[in-house]
């Protein structure tokens, strides 16, 4: 009895401690968010973030916001020396194009906002950036991979992550050059995403000298892929590439291994999911996927940064936290350059827009940044991950750059 009483008392005490710890952490973050909120007047420079802070993508959206917030706080002193109060204004685009455009109008009407970090979803970034273009507000995107984001040739739109159409070629480079694949069997799921990815992979692999021994389609929603895999087995490939999502990808990996196809299987970021590992089970080993997001903890500097982030916000880094940080840094660098060019006075949006686009050699925490004339990052890498054992996520094994 006594011991029980003691134990429950302990439990209560530790729970209370936990709660108070959480409270303190939350309060701290809140204060920081409103850090320079009281200011105003002519010498205020604001940058906005637009990402989903509510809804199903809120975790990723918040990571972008927190990353940007950290960058702003790091730079606040520097801007003070230049005579400016730097502030961050977070907006919630809810992952909804309508909300994103409405927010963009609000941002446009606040003359102190000189740039935007965002969005998470390409579908939101595309219509919102039409508004930015109209009011010359530079946008630096941490996460939008759709080709159309920059292909419209807007002056305000920049991104630091890779384009969708680089994932296939990057996968092909790794498959042919690192894994030494000579005979490749390609499977795709007949969707715009899967087929586009598979086609890009196929073309690049052929250019690199690999032979495509089969190119087949499957139907999304089916569970039995033995037919296609029999065909693959007969063609004796040394690598299978799958363009599609984890639901089918997991089954293909599982059924291929059951047929004795113990060769590497590779896919795009559609396989980047913990469900993929659940479905394929122990068959997952020797499976690769490409992703536009790097594992920031791979470098020492990145690891320190991740620890700092965790300490400050009480949350582990998400895949886009560091991209949010770097996007904001690039944007602030552009603003600084524009201030200098303007003789220390507050620059106009047009000046900041051109200063951001002209950044050529900026070393961020997770990626180097240099924009080409479309606003794509010349140094954007696609990262190859490998599943080692039945756990998610995989291990980053390579970074493929556009130059090689």
């Amino acid at each position: 009895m006594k011991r029980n009483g003691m134990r429950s008392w302990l439990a209560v005490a530790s729970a209370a401690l936990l709660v108070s710890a959480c409270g303190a952490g939350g309060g701290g973050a809140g204060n920081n968010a409103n850090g320079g909120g009281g200011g105003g007047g002519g010498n205020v420079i604001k940058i906005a973030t637009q990402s989903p802070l509510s809804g199903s993508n809120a975790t990723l959206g918040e990571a972008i916001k927190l990353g940007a917030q950290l960058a702003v706080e790091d730079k606040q002193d520097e801007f003070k020396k230049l005579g400016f109060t730097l502030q961050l204004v977070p907006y919630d685009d809810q992952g909804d194009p309508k909300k994103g455009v409405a927010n963009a109008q609000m941002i446009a009407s606040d003359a102190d906002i000189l740039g935007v970090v965002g969005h998470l979803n390409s579908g939101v970034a595309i219509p919102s950036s039409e508004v930015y273009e109209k009011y010359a507000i530079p946008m630096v995107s941490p996460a939008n991979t759709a080709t159309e984001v920059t292909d419209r040739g807007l002056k305000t739109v920049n991104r630091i992550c890779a384009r969708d159409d680089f994932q296939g070629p990057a996968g092909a480079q790794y498959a042919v050059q690192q894994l030494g694949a000579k005979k490749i069997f390609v499977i795709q799921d007949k969707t715009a995403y899967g087929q586009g990815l598979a086609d890009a992979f196929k073309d690049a692999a052929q250019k690199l000298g690999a032979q495509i021994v089969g190119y087949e389609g499957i139907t999304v929603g089916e569970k039995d892929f033995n037919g296609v895999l029999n065909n693959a087995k007969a063609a004796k490939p040394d690598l299978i590439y799958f363009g599609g999502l984890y639901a089918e990808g997991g089954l293909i990996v599982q059924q291929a291994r059951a047929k004795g196809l113990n060769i590497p299987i590779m896919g795009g970021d559609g396989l980047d999911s913990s469900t993929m590992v659940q479905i394929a089970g122990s068959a997952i080993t020797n499976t690769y996927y490409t992703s536009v997001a790097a594992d920031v903890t791979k470098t020492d500097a990145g690891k320190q940064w991740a620890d700092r982030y965790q300490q400050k916000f009480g949350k582990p880094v998400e895949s886009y936290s560091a991209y949010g940080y770097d996007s904001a840094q690039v944007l602030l660098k552009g603003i600084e350059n524009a201030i200098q060019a303007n003789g220390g006075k507050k620059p106009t949006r047009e000046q900041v827009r051109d200063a951001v686009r002209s950044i050529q050699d900026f070393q961020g925490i997770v990626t180097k940044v240099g924009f080409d004339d479309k606003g794509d990052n010349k140094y954007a890498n696609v990262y190859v991950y490998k599943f080692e054992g039945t756990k998610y996520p995989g291990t980053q094994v390579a970074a493929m750059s556009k130059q090689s």
Partner: protein
Amino acid sequence: MIAQTLQSLPQVLVDGVTLGAVYATVAIGYTMVYGILELINFAHGEIFMSGAFIGTAILLVLNGAGWLAHLPKLLVLLLTLLVAMALTGLLGMGIERVAYRPLRHAPRLIPLISAIGVSFVLQDVVRFIAEWRTGNYIVTGVTLYGSEVNFGSITVKSNALFVLGAAVVMMAGLDLFVRKTKWGTAMRAVAQDKDTAALMSINVNRVIALTFFMGSALGGATGVLFAQQYGTIDPYIGFILGLKAFTAAVLGGIGNIRGAMFGGFVLGILEMFASAELGPLTGGVLGAEYKDVFAFIILIAVLLFKPEGLFGQAVKEKV
């Protein structure tokens, strides 16, 4: 090219027969209900799906309690099958009672629509439960017989043997039941003419309920075996599979039980053959993505020459 086709043919046939066994047992459910009510029970694919989820849930619970390691696998599989059959059978009867019986004298299209409604309800109820319990509606279960068996150049998952075995046993049992027992005779009588059967002191409602129970139980059992075979299930597996099983039933002659079995196997083999060999045989012009087109072209060709299906009898319209 031909040599390669011949070489992989045995494996293709084995995979095709396994898939065909699934189609066949599900097709029986469609054909039994159609035979007796002339109703296409579109919710049958979802009953199959429910069976898959019930079986997976039982196994996950047993596994979570740590009993799975101590019980003989065969016993576990049989028990799971029986429980899933009982539950899906009752589910089928319940659907008939709630959604079809009140509409029995309504125009043909009305129960068809309520069947589609029921199938949506089942999909979303199962999705809700799965998501609530596991946080993800794609569920990966426990595979009892996951090892591979080799016969020469052919590799089969040992579970496939259970799929085949169970399908054959269930189909033979059903065939005997319908042809040899009193209830089976009653079933055939009701199928021929409900009103006259009622005059012969057959309880028509009870016979229809029994038909739904048996068809659904078969579908549910197949669901369990399907989940075992492919490892992963989601609430939408019933849609495509139901459509194909229905096609198999039509191919065999809808309303005819043996026809449905045959149609299921034919469709399974055709589909597997097309997805494996269409690419190599046409030199890569037509790939595996055309397997359904290929299978359905053959289906249309058969139905053009024999509209009543392979085993169906051209029945004169009842007056």
